[in-house]
Protein backbone atom coordinates (compact mmCIF):
# COMPACT_ATOMS: atom_id res chain seq x y z
CA UNK A 1 0.00 0.00 0.00
CA UNK A 2 1.37 3.39 -1.03
CA UNK A 3 1.92 6.10 1.55
CA UNK A 4 -0.22 9.17 0.90
CA UNK A 5 1.60 12.26 -0.32
CA UNK A 6 1.75 15.44 1.73
CA UNK A 7 -0.85 17.08 -0.45
CA UNK A 8 -3.21 14.14 0.08
CA UNK A 9 -2.72 14.47 3.82
CA UNK A 10 -3.35 18.21 3.58
CA UNK A 11 -6.57 17.51 1.71
CA UNK A 12 -7.58 15.01 4.36
CA UNK A 13 -6.80 17.55 7.09
CA UNK A 14 -9.05 20.04 5.31
CA UNK A 15 -11.85 17.45 5.16
CA UNK A 16 -11.38 16.89 8.86
CA UNK A 17 -11.69 20.63 9.53
CA UNK A 18 -14.83 20.87 7.41
CA UNK A 19 -16.36 17.95 9.29
CA UNK A 20 -15.94 19.83 12.55
CA UNK A 21 -17.66 23.18 12.07
CA UNK A 22 -17.77 25.65 14.90
CA UNK A 23 -20.97 25.23 16.92
CA UNK A 24 -23.13 28.32 17.47
CA UNK A 25 -23.16 29.89 20.93
CA UNK A 26 -26.35 30.00 22.95
CA UNK A 27 -28.31 33.26 22.74
CA UNK A 28 -27.55 34.40 26.28
CA UNK A 29 -23.85 33.48 26.23
CA UNK A 30 -22.66 37.08 25.89
CA UNK A 31 -25.07 38.34 28.53
CA UNK A 32 -23.97 35.68 31.03
CA UNK A 33 -20.31 36.30 30.28
CA UNK A 34 -20.47 40.08 30.71
CA UNK A 35 -22.56 39.67 33.87
CA UNK A 36 -19.81 37.42 35.26
CA UNK A 37 -17.13 39.89 34.21
CA UNK A 38 -18.93 42.67 36.03
CA UNK A 39 -19.37 40.57 39.18
CA UNK A 40 -15.73 39.46 39.22
CA UNK A 41 -13.63 42.47 38.27
CA UNK A 42 -9.88 42.00 38.01
CA UNK A 43 -7.94 42.37 41.23
CA UNK A 44 -6.22 45.47 39.88
CA UNK A 45 -9.58 47.17 39.40
CA UNK A 46 -10.69 46.16 42.88
CA UNK A 47 -7.68 47.95 44.35
CA UNK A 48 -8.18 50.95 42.13
CA UNK A 49 -11.81 51.31 43.12
CA UNK A 50 -11.85 50.38 46.81
CA UNK A 51 -9.92 52.39 49.38
CA UNK A 52 -10.70 49.76 52.01
CA UNK A 53 -9.07 47.04 49.89
CA UNK A 54 -5.96 49.19 49.47
CA UNK A 55 -5.70 49.75 53.24
CA UNK A 56 -6.31 46.06 53.97
CA UNK A 57 -3.69 45.01 51.42
CA UNK A 58 -1.19 47.50 52.86
CA UNK A 59 -1.72 46.19 56.38
CA UNK A 60 -1.32 42.64 55.17
CA UNK A 61 1.87 43.54 53.34
CA UNK A 62 3.30 45.38 56.35
CA UNK A 63 2.52 42.53 58.71
CA UNK A 64 3.99 39.94 56.36
CA UNK A 65 7.14 41.88 55.50
CA UNK A 66 7.50 43.74 58.79
CA UNK A 67 8.67 40.82 60.90
CA UNK A 68 11.57 39.68 58.69
CA UNK A 69 12.49 43.31 58.02
CA UNK A 70 12.63 44.07 61.76
CA UNK A 71 14.67 40.93 62.38
CA UNK A 72 17.07 41.95 59.63
CA UNK A 73 17.44 45.47 61.03
CA UNK A 74 18.09 44.00 64.49
CA UNK A 75 21.25 42.24 63.38
CA UNK A 76 22.84 45.33 61.85
CA UNK A 77 25.79 46.69 63.96
CA UNK A 78 25.15 49.79 66.04
CA UNK A 79 21.41 49.51 65.98
CA UNK A 80 21.16 48.13 69.52
CA UNK A 81 21.21 51.14 71.93
CA UNK A 82 21.92 49.19 75.16
CA UNK A 83 24.78 46.74 75.62
CA UNK A 84 23.68 43.48 77.19
CA UNK A 85 23.99 43.34 81.01
CA UNK A 86 25.86 40.35 82.37
CA UNK A 87 24.69 39.18 85.77
CA UNK A 88 26.39 36.89 88.23
CA UNK A 89 25.65 35.62 91.70
CA UNK A 90 27.69 37.36 94.45
CA UNK A 91 30.14 35.17 96.38
CA UNK A 92 28.44 33.82 99.53
CA UNK A 93 29.59 35.11 102.88
CA UNK A 94 30.61 32.35 105.23
CA UNK A 95 28.82 34.10 108.12
CA UNK A 96 25.54 33.94 106.17
CA UNK A 97 25.73 30.28 105.21
CA UNK A 98 27.40 28.89 108.28
CA UNK A 99 30.24 26.42 108.11
CA UNK A 100 31.16 25.39 104.61
CA UNK A 101 32.05 21.74 104.93
CA UNK A 102 33.64 21.61 101.51
CA UNK A 103 35.92 24.56 102.16
CA UNK A 104 39.35 23.83 100.76
CA UNK A 105 42.47 24.07 102.81
CA UNK A 106 45.11 25.74 100.60
CA UNK A 107 47.70 23.35 102.03
CA UNK A 108 45.83 20.29 100.83
CA UNK A 109 45.93 19.77 97.11
CA UNK A 110 42.73 18.23 95.79
CA UNK A 111 42.94 17.06 92.21
CA UNK A 112 39.57 17.22 90.49
CA UNK A 113 38.44 13.75 89.52
CA UNK A 114 38.81 12.74 85.96
CA UNK A 115 36.38 10.38 84.38
CA UNK A 116 38.22 7.17 85.07
CA UNK A 117 38.34 7.91 88.86
CA UNK A 118 34.66 8.53 89.28
CA UNK A 119 33.88 4.86 89.89
CA UNK A 120 37.19 4.02 91.52
CA UNK A 121 36.46 2.98 95.22
CA UNK A 122 39.98 3.67 96.46
CA UNK A 123 39.96 7.14 94.94
CA UNK A 124 36.53 7.81 96.42
CA UNK A 125 37.79 6.76 99.86
CA UNK A 126 40.71 9.13 99.50
CA UNK A 127 38.39 11.99 98.55
CA UNK A 128 36.13 11.22 101.50
CA UNK A 129 39.13 11.25 103.85
CA UNK A 130 40.34 14.58 102.45
CA UNK A 131 36.86 16.07 102.83
CA UNK A 132 36.68 14.93 106.45
CA UNK A 133 40.11 16.38 107.11
CA UNK A 134 39.10 19.66 105.52
CA UNK A 135 35.92 19.78 107.58
CA UNK A 136 37.89 19.22 110.68
CA UNK A 137 40.36 21.96 109.76
CA UNK A 138 37.51 24.39 109.19
CA UNK A 139 35.98 23.47 112.54
CA UNK A 140 39.16 24.06 114.46
CA UNK A 141 39.72 27.37 112.67
CA UNK A 142 36.71 28.66 114.58
CA UNK A 143 38.41 27.92 117.89
CA UNK A 144 40.85 30.33 119.59
CA UNK A 145 44.35 30.21 118.14
CA UNK A 146 45.94 28.58 121.22
CA UNK A 147 43.45 25.73 121.26
CA UNK A 148 43.76 25.28 117.50
CA UNK A 149 47.57 25.08 117.82
CA UNK A 150 47.25 22.49 120.58
CA UNK A 151 44.88 20.34 118.61
CA UNK A 152 47.07 20.48 115.47
CA UNK A 153 50.12 19.58 117.55
CA UNK A 154 48.23 16.69 119.07
CA UNK A 155 47.14 15.41 115.64
CA UNK A 156 50.67 15.71 114.31
CA UNK A 157 52.02 13.65 117.15
CA UNK A 158 49.36 11.07 116.79
CA UNK A 159 50.16 10.77 113.06
CA UNK A 160 53.83 10.19 113.84
CA UNK A 161 52.93 7.53 116.38
CA UNK A 162 50.60 5.76 114.01
CA UNK A 163 53.21 5.65 111.27
Amino acid at each position, binding site marked *: *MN*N*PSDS*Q*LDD*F*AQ*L*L*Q*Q*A*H*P*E*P*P*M*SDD*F*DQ*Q*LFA*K*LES*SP*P*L*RNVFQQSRFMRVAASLLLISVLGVPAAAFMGILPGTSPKPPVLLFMPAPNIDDIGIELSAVDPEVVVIPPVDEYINDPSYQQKVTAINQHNSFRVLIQLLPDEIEACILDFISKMNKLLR
Partner: protein
Amino acid sequence: MTKPSEDLLTRFNQGDAAAFAELVELFGPRLKGFFLRKGVQVSTAEDLSQHVFIRLYNSASRYQARGRFDSFCFQVAHNIFLDHCRSKKVTLHGDDIPEQSDERAQASEQVEASDRDQILRKVLAEQDDETQQLLELAVLQKLAYADVATILDIPVGTVKSRVYYALRRMRGQFKKYEQDL
Protein backbone atom coordinates in the same frame (compact mmCIF):
# COMPACT_ATOMS: atom_id res chain seq x y z
CA MET B 1 -11.64 37.38 6.11
CA THR B 2 -10.38 36.80 9.63
CA LYS B 3 -9.86 39.74 11.93
CA PRO B 4 -6.42 40.30 13.36
CA SER B 5 -7.10 38.69 16.72
CA GLU B 6 -3.67 39.73 18.03
CA ASP B 7 -4.83 43.32 17.99
CA LEU B 8 -8.10 42.79 19.81
CA LEU B 9 -6.71 42.25 23.29
CA THR B 10 -4.18 45.03 22.73
CA ARG B 11 -7.00 47.32 21.65
CA PHE B 12 -8.98 46.27 24.71
CA ASN B 13 -5.97 47.11 26.88
CA GLN B 14 -5.90 50.54 25.30
CA GLY B 15 -9.48 51.15 26.42
CA ASP B 16 -11.51 49.90 23.47
CA ALA B 17 -14.26 47.93 25.26
CA ALA B 18 -15.82 46.80 21.98
CA ALA B 19 -12.63 44.91 21.14
CA PHE B 20 -13.33 42.38 23.88
CA ALA B 21 -16.84 41.80 22.56
CA GLU B 22 -15.32 41.15 19.13
CA LEU B 23 -12.92 38.71 20.72
CA VAL B 24 -15.81 36.83 22.31
CA GLU B 25 -17.66 36.71 19.01
CA LEU B 26 -14.58 35.47 17.18
CA PHE B 27 -13.34 32.87 19.63
CA GLY B 28 -16.56 31.78 21.40
CA PRO B 29 -17.60 29.17 18.83
CA ARG B 30 -14.03 27.90 18.42
CA LEU B 31 -13.66 27.44 22.16
CA LYS B 32 -17.06 25.81 22.47
CA GLY B 33 -16.16 23.34 19.71
CA PHE B 34 -12.80 22.73 21.38
CA PHE B 35 -14.45 21.83 24.69
CA LEU B 36 -17.29 19.83 23.09
CA ARG B 37 -14.79 17.64 21.34
CA LYS B 38 -13.15 17.00 24.71
CA GLY B 39 -16.35 15.20 25.62
CA VAL B 40 -18.12 17.66 27.91
CA GLN B 41 -21.79 18.65 27.83
CA VAL B 42 -22.92 21.70 25.86
CA SER B 43 -23.60 23.75 28.99
CA THR B 44 -20.20 22.81 30.45
CA ALA B 45 -18.51 23.73 27.17
CA GLU B 46 -20.05 27.20 27.34
CA ASP B 47 -19.14 27.54 31.02
CA LEU B 48 -15.55 26.62 30.29
CA SER B 49 -15.49 29.03 27.34
CA GLN B 50 -16.67 31.75 29.71
CA HIS B 51 -13.88 30.83 32.12
CA VAL B 52 -11.39 31.31 29.30
CA PHE B 53 -12.75 34.77 28.51
CA ILE B 54 -12.79 35.74 32.18
CA ARG B 55 -9.17 34.69 32.50
CA LEU B 56 -8.25 36.58 29.33
CA TYR B 57 -10.11 39.64 30.64
CA ASN B 58 -8.33 39.50 34.00
CA SER B 59 -4.90 38.95 32.47
CA ALA B 60 -5.36 41.40 29.61
CA SER B 61 -3.11 43.99 31.24
CA ARG B 62 -0.24 41.49 31.36
CA TYR B 63 -0.73 40.28 27.79
CA GLN B 64 2.06 41.13 25.37
CA ALA B 65 1.34 40.46 21.73
CA ARG B 66 4.50 38.51 20.98
CA GLY B 67 3.05 35.38 19.39
CA ARG B 68 -0.21 34.37 17.82
CA PHE B 69 -3.18 35.25 19.96
CA ASP B 70 -5.08 32.06 19.14
CA SER B 71 -2.16 30.02 20.53
CA PHE B 72 -2.29 32.04 23.73
CA CYS B 73 -6.06 31.62 23.87
CA PHE B 74 -5.95 27.83 23.40
CA GLN B 75 -3.11 27.56 25.90
CA VAL B 76 -5.48 29.16 28.43
CA ALA B 77 -8.31 26.88 27.27
CA HIS B 78 -6.10 23.81 27.61
CA ASN B 79 -5.13 24.79 31.16
CA ILE B 80 -8.74 25.48 32.10
CA PHE B 81 -9.78 22.09 30.80
CA LEU B 82 -7.03 20.43 32.86
CA ASP B 83 -8.26 22.31 35.95
CA HIS B 84 -11.79 21.20 35.13
CA CYS B 85 -10.70 17.56 34.89
CA ARG B 86 -8.88 17.79 38.23
CA SER B 87 -11.87 19.32 40.00
CA LYS B 88 -14.22 16.83 38.31
CA LYS B 89 -12.39 13.94 39.92
CA VAL B 90 -13.18 15.35 43.33
CA THR B 91 -16.63 16.84 42.91
CA LEU B 92 -18.43 14.86 40.23
CA HIS B 93 -20.85 12.23 41.37
CA GLY B 94 -24.09 10.65 40.32
CA ASP B 95 -25.83 12.35 37.44
CA ASP B 96 -23.04 14.87 36.93
CA ILE B 97 -20.65 12.29 35.54
CA PRO B 98 -20.74 12.77 31.79
CA GLU B 99 -21.13 9.84 29.45
CA GLN B 100 -18.41 10.48 26.91
CA SER B 101 -20.03 8.72 24.00
CA ASP B 102 -23.33 10.56 24.58
CA GLU B 103 -21.57 13.92 24.77
CA ARG B 104 -19.62 13.33 21.64
CA ALA B 105 -22.87 12.35 19.97
CA GLN B 106 -24.40 15.60 21.25
CA ALA B 107 -21.46 17.49 19.80
CA SER B 108 -21.95 15.89 16.45
CA GLU B 109 -25.64 16.67 16.54
CA GLN B 110 -24.84 20.37 16.72
CA VAL B 111 -24.63 20.62 13.00
CA GLU B 112 -26.46 18.48 10.52
CA ALA B 113 -23.76 16.42 8.89
CA SER B 114 -23.28 14.47 5.73
CA ASP B 115 -22.30 10.81 5.83
CA ARG B 116 -18.73 11.71 4.99
CA ASP B 117 -18.52 14.20 7.84
CA GLN B 118 -19.99 11.65 10.23
CA ILE B 119 -17.37 9.13 9.22
CA LEU B 120 -14.63 11.71 9.70
CA ARG B 121 -15.92 12.50 13.19
CA LYS B 122 -16.12 8.84 13.99
CA VAL B 123 -12.55 8.32 12.81
CA LEU B 124 -11.34 11.20 14.99
CA ALA B 125 -13.36 9.97 17.97
CA GLU B 126 -11.73 6.57 17.66
CA GLN B 127 -8.25 7.99 18.17
CA ASP B 128 -6.63 7.91 21.60
CA ASP B 129 -6.86 11.02 23.78
CA GLU B 130 -3.33 12.23 23.04
CA THR B 131 -3.84 12.04 19.29
CA GLN B 132 -7.20 13.79 19.54
CA GLN B 133 -5.61 16.55 21.62
CA LEU B 134 -2.82 16.93 19.08
CA LEU B 135 -5.12 17.00 16.03
CA GLU B 136 -7.50 19.37 17.77
CA LEU B 137 -4.77 21.99 18.14
CA ALA B 138 -2.66 21.34 15.06
CA VAL B 139 -5.36 20.50 12.50
CA LEU B 140 -8.75 21.75 13.66
CA GLN B 141 -7.51 24.95 15.34
CA LYS B 142 -4.65 25.32 12.81
CA LEU B 143 -2.10 26.38 15.41
CA ALA B 144 1.59 26.42 14.52
CA TYR B 145 3.45 23.22 15.40
CA ALA B 146 5.77 25.18 17.68
CA ASP B 147 2.78 26.53 19.62
CA VAL B 148 1.22 23.07 19.86
CA ALA B 149 4.54 21.79 21.18
CA THR B 150 4.55 24.51 23.84
CA ILE B 151 0.94 23.86 24.88
CA LEU B 152 1.37 20.09 25.10
CA ASP B 153 4.93 20.34 26.41
CA ILE B 154 6.45 18.02 23.80
CA PRO B 155 9.18 18.64 21.20
CA VAL B 156 8.19 20.22 17.87
CA GLY B 157 9.59 17.25 15.97
CA THR B 158 7.33 14.93 17.95
CA VAL B 159 4.33 17.09 17.07
CA LYS B 160 5.18 16.96 13.37
CA SER B 161 5.73 13.23 13.26
CA ARG B 162 2.68 12.40 15.39
CA VAL B 163 0.43 14.61 13.26
CA TYR B 164 1.79 13.04 10.08
CA TYR B 165 1.31 9.46 11.27
CA ALA B 166 -2.09 10.20 12.80
CA LEU B 167 -3.38 11.76 9.57
CA ARG B 168 -2.00 8.90 7.52
CA ARG B 169 -3.61 6.31 9.79
CA MET B 170 -6.91 8.17 9.95
CA ARG B 171 -7.00 8.61 6.18
CA GLY B 172 -6.65 4.84 5.81
CA GLN B 173 -9.46 4.25 8.31
CA PHE B 174 -11.61 6.83 6.56
CA LYS B 175 -11.11 5.16 3.15
CA LYS B 176 -12.02 1.80 4.66
CA TYR B 177 -15.24 3.15 6.21
CA GLU B 178 -16.13 4.83 2.91
CA GLN B 179 -15.72 1.57 1.04
CA ASP B 180 -17.92 -0.22 3.57
CA LEU B 181 -20.76 2.21 2.95
